[in-house]
């Protein structure tokens, strides 16, 4: 009425102002206490398919929606049984026999059976994607009874249980019913839940948010203190996430900047978390390309990177240097191994020895600017410039980066890769990066590094059941790595996050960093 009666040039503007007043006054309603948890993240997972849980963005919802045979005790790398009631290993180490719990059910009420484990294994072996990268020694599964299933291996594999923490069992009947043109349910699972985890999916809004709520029949049981319902919402800008946390509109936020962490550290009602992780940052050098085909050039570039500057100045101490090529908390890591070294004198000597003249070489480097990797590129560019090598930026997202590395001729000269290993086993770090089977189309070997000696050592180490022998083999792998330098090992991540004080029970599992496992959490 107001708008239709008023006349003149002021009319429309007055209408806009009136609408603004009404909208703003809507916020004056008294605040009600939230009964659910709000977690703010950088991005929505590209899919909810449990097979894709290799990607930490996917593991985030999946660890809450699905269960694995075994799982890490939150905050540790100690394994505990999850869907499995017990397990045995055959004498030759090539067969693991699991007995499933009798009380585990999927969210639709169907019991979790051996057939579901076999279906999930078969699905992984058919699609050869996601967590398969860590489970390549698995040859198949056999149903031995309603609750008994065997997982078979080509060779003994000491890292199997650790890798199985990321292998989530899906409801075979439900997925089969939703297959589309033989896709084994990939399309349906993108936004649906077929799990037996402590939480079930309530809603999924692409690029905005998803909501989960407690699954009453969860086999782990429910005590008095748990989260009933949680909303994972995307707010890409860290500054906005920080405002939301301060205002009490969020309970937990992910941080990528040490500056934000320091700014929030003194805020009343807010706790900041600095969690050690196993995540390592590597710089892949395309070993198929000149001049990076020459190991001296690769070693020189590795020596040109300012690791200490990265840790102290960029991350303000919120990062760690690895021991040799392994994270400090990784299996077989030893403090005797020197951390990566910044030595421009030696780097220049190597460059001169390789015959590379200043100003002659220009290299491309792929990185993910959207996830805060631009400073890594800048540090590398500055170091390379000292050697007379020009580095240009190729700023792309993870999926495009994977595509970029799918062929050696189309890939960039250098690139970043964060490795989110499922557990501390050295195998997960070294095999997936340096084994020739993982080159390009094969996985994380973005360097296209292929060396039969390295392959033999990695294969032997994977099959070695005795820790001493295994670590001895990994020492040899490490020595060869540092000599050949297919990847420069940069830093180990310290997980940064901030939360409201009344959120309790948050802990990060080293094998699942950046993942918010809701089950142990509660709001006080």
């Amino acid at each position, binding site marked *: 009425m107001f708008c239709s009666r008023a006349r003149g040039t002021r009319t429309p*503007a007055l209408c806009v102002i009136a609408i603004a007043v009404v909208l703003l006054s809507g916020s004056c309603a008294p605040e009600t206490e939230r009964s659910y948890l709000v977690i703010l993240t950088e991005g929505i997972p*590209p899919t909810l398919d449990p097979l894709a849980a290799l990607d930490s963005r996917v593991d985030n919802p999946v660890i809450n929606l699905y269960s694995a045979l075994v799982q890490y005790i939150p905050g540790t790398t100690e394994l505990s049984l999850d869907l499995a009631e017990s397990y045995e290993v055959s004498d030759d180490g090539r067969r693991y026999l699991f007995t499933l719990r009798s009380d585990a059910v999927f969210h639709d009420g169907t019991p979790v059976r051996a057939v579901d484990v076999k279906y999930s294994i078969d699905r992984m072996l058919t699609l050869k994607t996601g967590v398969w990268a860590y489970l390549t020694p698995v040859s198949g599964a056999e149903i031995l009874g309603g609750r008994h299933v065997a997982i078979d291996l080509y060779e003994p594999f000491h890292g199997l249980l650790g890798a199985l923490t990321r292998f989530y069992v899906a409801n075979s009947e439900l997925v089969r019913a939703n297959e589309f043109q033989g896709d084994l349910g990939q399309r349906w699972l993108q936004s649906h839940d077929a799990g037996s985890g402590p939480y079930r999916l309530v809603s999924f*809004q692409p*690029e905005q948010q998803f909501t989960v709520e407690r699954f009453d029949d969860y086999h782990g049981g429910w005590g008095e203190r748990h989260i009933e319902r949680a909303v994972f919402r995307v707010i*890409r800008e860290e500054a906005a996430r920080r*405002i939301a946390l301060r*205002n009490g509109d969020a309970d937990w936020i992910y941080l990528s900047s040490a500056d934000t962490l320091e700014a929030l550290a003194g805020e009343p009602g807010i706790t900041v978390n600095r969690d050690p992780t196993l995540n390592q940052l590597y710089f892949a050098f395309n070993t198929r390309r000149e001049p990076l085909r020459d190991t001296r050039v690769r070693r020189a570039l590795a020596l040109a990177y300012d690791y200490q500057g990265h840790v102290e100045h960029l991350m303000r101490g919120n990062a760690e240097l690895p021991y040799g090529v392994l994270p400090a908390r990784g299996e077989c890591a030893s403090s005797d191994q020197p951390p990566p070294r910044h030595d421009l004198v030696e780097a220049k000597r190597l460059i001169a020895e390789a015959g590379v003249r200043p100003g002659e070489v220009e290299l491309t480097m792929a990185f993910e600017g959207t996830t805060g990797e631009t400073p890594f590129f800048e540090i590398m560019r500055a170091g390379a410039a000292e050697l007379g090598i020009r580095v240009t930026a190729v700023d792309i997202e993870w999926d495009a980066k994977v595509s*970029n590395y*799918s062929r050696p001729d*189309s890939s960039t000269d250098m690139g970043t890769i964060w490795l989110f290993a499922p557990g501390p086993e050295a195998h997960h770090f070294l095999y997936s990066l340096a084994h020739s089977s993982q080159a390009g189309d094969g996985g994380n070997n973005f360097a296209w590094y292929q060396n039969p000696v390295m392959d033999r050592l990695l294969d032997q180490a994977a099959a070695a059941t005795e820790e001493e022998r295994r670590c001895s083999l990994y020492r040899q792998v490490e020595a060869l790595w540092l000599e050949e330098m297919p990847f420069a090992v940069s830093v180990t991540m310290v997980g940064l996050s901030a939360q409201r004080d009344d959120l309790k029970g948050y802990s990060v599992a080293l094998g699942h960093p950046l993942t918010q496992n809701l089950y142990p959490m509660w709001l006080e």
Partner: protein
Amino acid sequence: MMGRYVARRLFLMIPVLLGVSILAFYVSQLLPGDPARAAAGRLATPEQLEAVRERLGLDQPIPVQYGLYIGRLLQGDLGTSLSSKQEVAQELRIFFPATLELLFATMVLTVVLGITIGVRAATSRGGWVDRAFLGFSYLGVGMPVFFLALLLQLVFAGWLRVLPIAGRLSLETVPPPVLTGLYTFDALFAGQWATMMDAGRHLVLPALTLSIAGISEVGRITRSAMLNALEQDYVRTARAKGLSERAVWLRHALPNAMLPTTTVIGLQVAFLLGGTVLIENIFSWGGLGTYAWKGIFRLDIPVIMGITLVSTTAYLFVNLGVDLLYTKLDPRIRYE
């Protein structure tokens, strides 16, 4: 006459869309990476990769691939996203209304405030309103949009806490039944006033951010066109007839000043169709901009093609609308 003109313009859209589709298709072939790999998954075997390549027709020469694409397009099939495995048309139905709602709110602010301020500035030339507007317009055009967005978030969501910081609805608000996909309209049609208010409150900051530059632009053009119109003979005649100053501005000067303003408004709409990426990301809007951004970074060619065609079509219709509006604003303009 007008009907024939519209029919001709609609017909001419076909070669334009074909041209754009050819360009977009060929440019997308130049992107680094392998779309078959993106579709098959990072660890698919060479055999699986080849099977996917064959299934998607990616093993065919580029002109053949384009022909296959157009053939499917004519049947209303925009293809399947390589990354999400969902139909592009279906995903566009989710993302496009979000952008349309944001665009609508932005344009309401731009047009209403831009024209009002422009007229006021012109009619008080040299006064404080005029000087203040000129200062604002320099700031509005010059200030980076991402900085403005963060500033507004900090002030209205952080300090004053009167508006939500991001998203399309509050966490506790259930989206209204889908009719148009525009939450405000759908809530209005469903009689869900609280939801409508909530959706409206979420629109304020992103729409305001996007509209500041537009208000400056529309305001400046309106001001200058008004100043020009106010010096014309017909305005002098109107004043001589004894009409009130307000009537002279609104009934005689403004309609004549609207021609260049309409052109600028049309250009603003066109800009916003492709220019919301940054703001959608900052405000977690989940619209076409976010979808396009993801598609590009994921080398998802069907998504890139779908967005290009939808945006181009919308752009062509906006242009047509502006051209038709000219005839209403200036009866001397005739299309044959």
